[in-house]
């Protein structure tokens, strides 16, 4: 790999992802740190960790069976349910909270646990599904000769567990750093459910002191980092452990009389995580309690388009720019991570922007770019792409590095022997071979960018996005307009994945 190219990519990452954090860290004073010990941070952190653990455990309980049943069994419609399984992950968690608190009258902690588990179980399911399908048929056959299906499960489950645990670690990280769901369920009334991310938000909002907010965030940052480090190790183990060069895939496991109960479990989970919320939004957009009609629905959608056209356009443009930048940057960094031992040291640094609470990263962006020299950028929509690229490039880089690990190095060697230089090898040999992973990285970053709220709360340029508009609007009452705008956003979120499924013959590789 070309050293100047890697250095350029690394320098860009430092500017976009690490510089905001470095500037924030420099503002912490000893007073800020001592204030941490006098506040009620410890019990709040304990509650947040418990919340994250509870959600991760629920995600594991739901995700492993879902992944196994859809990837390895003869369950009816397994091939349809498997790709649909990612839809709850694509829906903004706040949207799920909006719906389920209204449908089931849930409040406080139970609502937050329920919504976050629904939102994160697909993380475990997709990791588990990929691991189960990558187990070589001969391994299963050897186990089957020893003790039938039971022995097969006993032999293969340990192979699928590390990736599933990696998904659970990510579910934990997403949950403890999420501000929107606890904020929304608390805003609805008693009982409140405060978490640590709330207190960081409040510290900045009340004091507007960056140092205090950073100090406040340090324990959460440490907790996140402590979770991401094993997640990365489990990812590496899970991605490579079960793949052999002359791989043979296994026949689906026959469930016998359990086929339909398995289907009910998977379809029910999808109904709760995606179809009921989307149906409820459709019902609200069409008039809801006042009486549903197509006329009302059309009015709500035309109002959403008319009043939020600019916000929707800003969201889409910045998400497209972010996804494109992340794919290019991620390809260079991901390739270097896998092929160069020295570049592997970059990996822990790559996760840092994701490890800090999103609210804090947003504040870091304000501190870094709110200057006279960069005023034009600060006021423009481009800053949203700058913010989101710094935060999400890790996903594109890890997806690329995982795919490069599975790419035969002799393909690149052959090009090198033919006199092809490093940038062209990357563009003409590596990138085409990795197209479904690059497309997966693009879709994942696009989705995460469209649904991001926490990191954008304090950035003025990001206050003109569809997600921010929904967040603002729900605090002033719910109506058909909000539901229609939410549905519009969901449509945009699922569109790239839908287009890929319809027109591409290869499966989208969404996993880091």
């Amino acid at each position, binding site marked *: 790999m070309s050293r100047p190219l890697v250095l350029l990519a690394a320098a860009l990452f430092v500017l976009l992802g690490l510089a905001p954090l470095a500037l924030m860290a420099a503002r912490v004073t000893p007073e800020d740190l001592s204030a941490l010990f006098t506040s009620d941070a410890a019990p709040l952190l304990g509650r947040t960790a418990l919340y994250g653990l509870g959600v991760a455990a629920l995600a594991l309980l739901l995700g492993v069976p879902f992944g196994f049943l859809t990837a390895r069994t003869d369950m009816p419609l397994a091939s349809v349910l498997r790709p649909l399984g990612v839809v709850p992950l694509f829906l903004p968690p706040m949207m799920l909270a909006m719906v389920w608190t209204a449908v089931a009258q849930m409040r406080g902690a139970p609502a937050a646990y329920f919504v976050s588990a629904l939102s994160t179980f697909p993380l475990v399911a997709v990791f588990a599904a990929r691991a189960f399908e990558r187990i070589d048929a001969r391994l299963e056959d050897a186990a089957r000769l020893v003790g039938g299906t039971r022995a097969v499960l006993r032999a293969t489950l340990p192979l699928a567990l590390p990736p599933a645990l990696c998904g659970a670690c990510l579910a934990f990280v997403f949950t403890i750093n999420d501000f929107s769901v606890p904020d929304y369920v608390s805003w609805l009334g008693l009982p409140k459910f405060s978490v640590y991310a709330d207190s960081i938000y409040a510290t900045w909002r009340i004091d507007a002191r960056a140092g205090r907010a950073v100090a406040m965030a340090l324990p959460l940052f440490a907790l996140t980092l402590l979770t991401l480090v094993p997640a990365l190790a489990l990812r590496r183990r899970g991605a490579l452990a079960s793949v052999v060069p002359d791989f043979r895939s296994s026949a689906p496991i026959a469930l016998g009389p359990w086929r339909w109960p398995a289907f009910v479990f998977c379809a029910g989970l999808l109904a709760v995580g995606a179809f009921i919320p989307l149906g409820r939004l459709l019902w609200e957009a069409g008039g809801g309690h006042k009486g549903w009609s197509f006329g009302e629905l059309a009015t709500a959608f035309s109002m959403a388009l008319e009043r939020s056209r600019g916000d929707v356009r800003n969201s889409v443009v910045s998400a497209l720019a972010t996804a494109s930048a992340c794919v290019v940057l991620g390809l260079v960094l991901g390739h270097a991570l896998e092929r160069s031992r020295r570049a592997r040291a970059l990996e822990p640094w790559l996760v840092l922007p994701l490890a800090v609470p999103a609210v804090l990263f947003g504040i870091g962006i304000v501190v870094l770019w709110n200057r006279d020299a960069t005023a034009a950028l600060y006021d423009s929509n481009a800053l949203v792409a700058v913010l989101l690229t710094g935060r999400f490039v890790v996903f594109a880089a890890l997806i690329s590095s995982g795919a490069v690990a599975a790419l035969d190095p*002799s393909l690149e060697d*052959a*090009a*090198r022997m033919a006199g092809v*230089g490093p940038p062209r090898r990357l563009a*003409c040999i590596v990138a*085409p071979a990795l197209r479904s992973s690059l497309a997966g990285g693009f879709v994942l970053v696009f989705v995460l960018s469209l649904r991001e709220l926490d990191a954008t709360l304090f950035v003025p340029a990001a206050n003109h996005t569809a997600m921010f508009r929904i967040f603002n609007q729900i605090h002033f009452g719910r109506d058909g307009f909000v539901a229609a705008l939410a549905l519009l956003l969901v449509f945009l979120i699922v569109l790239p994945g839908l287009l890929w499924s319809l027109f591409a013959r290869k499966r989208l590789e969404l996993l880091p």
Partner: protein
Amino acid sequence: MSAVSLDAVSVRIGARTLLDALTLEVAEREHLLVVGPSGSGKTTLLRTIAGLASPDTGAVSLFGTQASDGARMLVPAERRRIGFLFQNGALWPHMSAARQIEFVLEHAAVAARERARRASELLEWVELRGFEQRMPATLSGGEAQRVALARALAVEPKLLLLDEPLGPLDFELRAALLAKLGELQQRLGLTVVHVTHAPEEARAIATRTLRLRAGRIEDER
């Protein structure tokens, strides 16, 4: 003048020594067979000659030009003009048989009009006329190896490195490909360094056999 000259070349990865102060001369037009157990350093030897692995110590020279001096790469792999036939062919999965060759010719600054003609000619050489638009996934093991051979020859190398090229093929295909290799070597005056697990098959076209063990030459005949 030697085609390949290795002077006390050592390659280490961590605590493991892959080549241990290896000294070797390969004359022009020679077909050197390299055999030895797994992990003896056969593939590392080829990669070091090609410039894909850099030695820790020692010097590598090709046709009288020093290519590396210790860890310092004087001529990078992409400028050595060596043909390399990899164990699994290493065909680029997104390129047709003809495109594999044209892509190599592009980098040898061959004019666009000339590339298609040369690609067809090379495919004809390896008896794959009409396979121009076939993708790697649709080729049999033997066909894929012959496309890879055509691609390796596209740079008009004076030195061809073969890394167990017959491994995945059945007996008849192995015999056919070996015959083709022998014929090409004669016709093009190539120097060949050929790593194999099955020396008995290739001995007929080899001029010398070298046995490696633990990165050192154990036997030579």
